[in-house]
């Protein structure tokens, strides 16, 4: 069996005043897409930076590919996109991209050739000789993304790769990530957007306040979380539903989105009873479906609303 792409082993990191990561352990198997989830400030970036040996753990260790080597010595196998993006503003786009490949060990000519190919792929070939500062923020993000992948790394670590991207660019990057995973390589990305992780990831780890809360394949995590979950879609007279949804004998937890809602039935309550009650009150429904729990609801249940609310405000 292949050794795990990443093995985080009892890692602890303290900063002045607080502990960012507390004896965290998990494994990222080789191949596939792995999601490192958690609210802002949970310790995702700190964990990733320890994987890249940018900061050293106070306790424990991180092992990549089962090798006891510094990531800098195997940097040709690693692609890393930091959370805080940045490029040399005065450099020409093509040269900059080639430079990012060169520091990963590519030869000068090879780096330049690959940089050209990537610019074409991203639709930026007309910008190759422009300066980085002339590019829009989205374009700069794409260039940096390409710089992470230029040398065909076996393990790609992306810290919040989709933040700040418009839907078109986010789609493009998603396609690239999926393609890397298909070719048998490993992608690890961090995010606090659960929908994205749910759609893309084979496996996830959720951390909160530096500690692991959930670990496993997405289906496994959902099965373990269990419970009867129901998704609702409202058309009219939603206000009539308020009393029923607040009834603790029927509904255990509620995640209200306004025009739709996701809820977990109380123990002993049946979907029929809930549907019957809603119809009796004259609530207009266009959806009533028994579903698997969404990652979002698992996340909220495990991490707690308190941790999520400031995260969302910050993200906005």
């Amino acid at each position, binding site marked *: 069996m292949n050794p795990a792409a990443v093995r985080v082993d009892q890692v602890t990191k303290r900063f002045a005043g607080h502990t960012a990561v507390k004896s965290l352990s998990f494994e990222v198997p080789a191949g596939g897409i792995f999601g490192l989830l958690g609210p802002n400030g949970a310790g995702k970036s700190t964990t990733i930076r320890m994987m*890249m040996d940018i900061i050293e753990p106070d306790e424990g260790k991180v092992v990549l590919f089962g090798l006891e080597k510094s990531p800098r010595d195997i940097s040709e196998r690693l692609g890393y996109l930091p959370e805080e993006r940045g*490029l040399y503003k005065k450099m020409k786009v093509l040269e900059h991209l080639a430079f990012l490949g060169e520091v990963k060990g590519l030869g000068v000519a090879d780096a330049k050739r690959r940089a050209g190919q990537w610019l074409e792929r991203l639709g930026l070939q007309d910008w190759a000789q422009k300066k980085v500062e002339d590019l829009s923020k989205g374009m700069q993000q794409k260039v940096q993304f390409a710089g992470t992948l230029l040398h065909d790394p076996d393990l790609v670590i992306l810290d919040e790769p989709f933040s700040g991207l418009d839907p078109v660019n986010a789609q493009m990057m998603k396609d690239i990530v999926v393609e890397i995973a298909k070719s048998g390589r490993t992608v690890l990305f961090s995010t606090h957007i659960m929908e994205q992780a749910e759609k893309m990831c084979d496996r996830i780890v959720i951390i909160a306040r530096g500690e692991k809360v959930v670990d496993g394949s997405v289906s496994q995590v959902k099965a373990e979380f269990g419970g009867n979950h129901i998704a609702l879609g409202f058309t009219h007279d939603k206000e009539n539903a308020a009393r029923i949804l607040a009834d603790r004998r029927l509904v255990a937890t509620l995640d209200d989105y306004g025009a739709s809602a996701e809820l977990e039935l109380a123990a002993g309550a049946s979907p029929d009873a809930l549907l019957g009650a809603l119809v009796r009150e004259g609530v207009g429904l266009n959806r009533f479906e028994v579903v698997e729990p969404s990652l979002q609801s698992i996340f909220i249940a495990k991490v707690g609303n308190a941790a999520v609310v400031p995260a969302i405000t910050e993200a906005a």
Partner: protein
Amino acid sequence: MNKTLAVIRRELVARVRTRAFLISTLILPILMVFVAVVPALMMRGGSRTMQIAMVDGTGDSLGSRIESALAGEKLSRDPGAPTRYALHRFVAAGRVAVLRDSLVALTGVSREQHPQSFDGVLVVTDSTIATGKVDYLGTNTSSFESMGQLEGTISKVLVQMRLAHSGLDPAIVASAIRPINLNATKVSDGKATGQSGVQSFAIAYFMAFLLYLSVVLYGQQTMTSVIEEKTSRIMEVLASSMRPFQMLLGKVLGVGLTGLLQMTIWGGTYYLVTSQRGRLAGLFGLSADAMQSLPIPAMPTDLLVVFLVYFMLGFLLFGALYAAIGSICNTIQETQQYAVAVTMVLMLGFFSVFAVMKDPTGGLGVTLSFVPFFSQLVMPVRWSLAAVSPIELAGSLAIGIATLLGTTWLAGRIYRTGILMYGKKPTFGEVFRWIRQG
């Protein structure tokens, strides 16, 4: 190693391509050629034979004496050189003003208009002996050099005449008024170099100034560039791909090579301008002779090499320090407090150069050319002013290189931790701890 090379290449290309670099690199050589050629071009008028008309209103031999004195003046010390003046003496016989005006009418007109034209009219009268008054009306009256020479020659004749009138032996007079001529020549390593003392001083001063300025400017560029990498957050990508020491080395060498390129272009132009005067003169249609009076002294080859070696040594030493300062700060403003300390050391070195210039073989000069952080300024200056033995040079270089290695190691330790620290600026105590941590 390839990664370090990639960083060196990036730094070099990014810098050389800027407009500021291009302009500053080209402007100095152009200035040098300008300074070398323009005075010679302007003096061209003074270095051809002048057509002088002399109105002789004297009753005695003064007029003819002046004529023969002026006829004896040559354009240069070379015995075969052409005469400075072509003199045409017109005896006035009482009609000084009329003759003068008719000759002035022929002065400064082009040869095509009139075959016989003059550059100036000299008027000598009977009262000249008593009053010392000689009129000169000419086209070249604003040339200090021409006027000075004319005045000198005539006053020598006048002094001789006056002394002879008072009964002194003309032979004694001639020997008494011969001026002294101090011919100071610099001696280096037992050999005369052909440079005058003033010239050596000018080179030494110019070099010290250039070394000081370039190390400060390029050193601060290193610092700014580290800050830029920190603020643009490109640092994290670099730090995950290579060791901090590789980054530091690449950056300092890259910026240093940019500086070395500029210094080589500057020093090389200077070297060529001063050593290839003849060719340069030919290029501008000047006689090689005219260029000999070039106001800038020649730079010996060995001095050029010493200059460039010590520039690199000095820059790397201070560049590493400036880079370390950049790494512990987040903004340019924050760096000032630390950078001032480093710049002070450099300035102290620059000021000490003046003391060394006064007495290049004295105790202070010899000592300072071995003291790290001073030697990179003092040694080239001493080399240009006095004879320095190769053993002394080797010793100074050895100490310099040892210091460089130590400083780079120290800077590397600070850099390693500093580049990834954001937020609060560390205290001196913290920086000290980073250095100690293995």
